[in-house]
């Protein structure tokens, strides 16, 4: 039996019961949290619109197919499905970009396909390396940890290759 199916319900149940025990006002807290959802989602919209317009053009021009073809030996070498390649390339730069690519993969292959599962794991196990380093150290004057940026990129790539491997088994 798939134990993972219980993860979310158990989590929510535990949270609600614990909150009640802690005398936290559930309804007030929940609605208070939801207040931030619309500003957050709509703050993504300009970036999503730009990225989707870009990727649609890139796809319609046939260049995306060309690039995929050029890169396919590389992905094949690492055992990564070709359609997941763009996600690995864009993830370090842009969160909304990778979100756009992920939803495209779901739409094209269906959310339960091997490709979609690889994309899910890669998306969930990596971060926007360049964005994080730019924001975290935006107010720092001294030396910036450049080597850590390279290390993070390499570690994310290794994990992405590994992710495609475990998705075959798990």
């Amino acid at each position, binding site marked *: 039996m798939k134990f993972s199916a219980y993860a979310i319900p158990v989590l929510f149940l535990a949270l609600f019961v614990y909150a009640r025990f802690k005398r936290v006002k559930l309804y007030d807290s929940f609605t208070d949290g939801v207040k931030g*959802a619309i500003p957050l*989602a709509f703050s993504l919209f300009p970036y999503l619109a730009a990225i989707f*317009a870009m990727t649609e053009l890139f796809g*319609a*021009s046939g*260049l995306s197919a060309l690039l995929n073809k050029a890169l396919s030996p590389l992905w094949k070498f690492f055992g990564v499905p070709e359609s997941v390649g763009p996600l690995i390339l864009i993830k370090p730069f842009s969160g909304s970009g990778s979100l756009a690519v992920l939803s495209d993969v*779901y739409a094209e292959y269906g*959310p339960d396909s091997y490709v979609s599962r690889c994309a899910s794991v890669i998306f969930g196990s990596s971060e926007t390396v360049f964005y994080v380093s730019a924001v975290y150290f935006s107010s720092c004057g001294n030396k910036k940890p450049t080597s*850590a940026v390279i290390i993070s990129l390499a570690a994310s790539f290794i994990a992405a290759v590994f*992710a495609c491997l475990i998705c075959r088994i798990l």
Partner: protein
Amino acid sequence: MNGIFFFLTTVSVAVMLFVRPDDVLSSMLKGGEKALELTLTMTAVYAVWMGALKIAENCGITEKLARALKKPVKFLFGNVSDKAEEYIAMNLSANLLGMGGVATPMGMAAAKELDRDGNVHAMGMLLALAATSIQLLPTSVISLRAEAGSAAPNDVILPTLIATSLSTAIAALSVKLVSKRGKK
């Protein structure tokens, strides 16, 4: 991002000028439509998770986790000021729970504190942990899969946890090794 956007759009439009000029506008509109659709989906996703996270926050779970993280922080970051340690622990605990909104200001505060002490090793460690994602539950991914009609949206939790632990472990270890070699 500006460079990428300029390059990809310009080259694409230039190519389409010769092959299918009629499709340029419709492709861009299709992009806008997809963006709006995804924005609405994400509004629903964020509504659920940000509501739940606020409850967790009000229960004091973030602080509790931050307190539990004090020891691991000491081990990974070595000697840092008390203030920096507190910011780092808060940043890690928020990142573990997937609260990006809380994690980012804490990370910036920690970076500023470490920068003042000129502790490049600790700054590198902070980045390595944050930039390889230590989120315990891939909430957006699960929700997006569920929205797309997946039969088992949760079955990526375990692989994601394994992959993200691997990347974080590799990054943390490498940062430690690099800074050790730098000291010699």
